[in-house]
């Protein structure tokens, strides 16, 4: 009986010792995938760093707003169904015993498997919850060519 208890306790200790790292790695992988995944989410990439190859003069000050690294491409065939801008599953946030728990399904996870919730303190070393943001890009997809035209023709130097 005591041997069995010891074995169980030992197993439990191993699981406790191992899980935080695993979860952190998995969460980091998922975050990387969301950032680099194909589709609109990746196509409209936004970074806060100023453009790398812009000469300091005579151009204006480096922009403080996001810069774009790659485009959204159009196909001449209209989409059959209005596609969502994001192809990754949206992060789910649900409260749990006073602190928010953040659940996210990694991109490579089986569709049939239920996403497991991750306690925020086990994800971020700072104890802050990590939210996998898959919000729509800053620029929504215009529905008509006229909308697209209005947007591009309204551009002015900052």
């Amino acid at each position, binding site marked *: 009986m005591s041997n069995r208890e010891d074995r169980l306790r030992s197993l439990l200790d191993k699981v406790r010792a191992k899980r935080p790292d695993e979860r952190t790695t998995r969460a980091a992988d998922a975050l990387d995938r969301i950032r680099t995944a194909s589709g609109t989410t990746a196509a409209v990439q936004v970074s806060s760093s100023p453009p790398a190859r812009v000469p300091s003069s005579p151009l204006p000050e480096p922009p403080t*707003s996001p810069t774009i690294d790659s485009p959204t491409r159009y196909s001449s*065939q209209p989409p059959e169904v209005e596609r969502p801008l994001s192809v990754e599953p949206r992060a789910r946030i649900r409260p749990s015993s006073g602190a928010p728990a953040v659940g996210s399904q990694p991109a490579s996870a089986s569709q049939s498997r239920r996403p497991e919730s991750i306690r925020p303190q086990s994800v971020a070393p700072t104890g802050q919850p990590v939210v996998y943001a898959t919000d729509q890009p800053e620029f929504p997809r215009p529905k008509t060519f006229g909308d697209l035209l209005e947007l591009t023709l309204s551009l002015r*130097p900052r």
Partner: protein
Amino acid sequence: MHDGRFDPSGFYEFNLTAGMVRTRTGERVVILGEDVLCSLVAAAARDGDLTPLRRLGELLGEQVHGGLDRPASVLSPEAVLGHVSAVISLFGWGRLTFERWGPALVIALRDKPELDEDELGAAALLGGMFSEISQRQVSCVPTGDSKFIMVDFEVAETVWGWFKDGADLPAIVGMLEAKRAS
């Protein structure tokens, strides 16, 4: 017009007796060798007068108009792209696609005739075409790699200056912001 897709059948009418080629809207066209066209455009670019290229673009825009059953402004970008790219292809000007860089519409024109080093000939052509399609004065400014950012003609000179000073497309987009006309 049918399902809104471009129908290329019968686009050209060859009249061997009269020695003429016309488009289905009645516009007479002349088939030129690429090297001949390039020489003409290069000379025009050196002289700083690309008006004929812009006019040719307007004619292409009229061809696009002729194939649309509604104004381009109310059609989807994909539908307009289908017609524009078909007309561009039928005139032998390459493969045209749309890209959206943030708020900016960028025209990519691949496999086009290499007219002039700065791609100002193609820019004039695209500017004329999209001005005709949109019924507004627009400019397509070269930004390298056979891409042209579509902007209001009033800011075209500024954007061109940025590109000539070394700014690439992401940087140019970053230096622009959407402002509604007051």
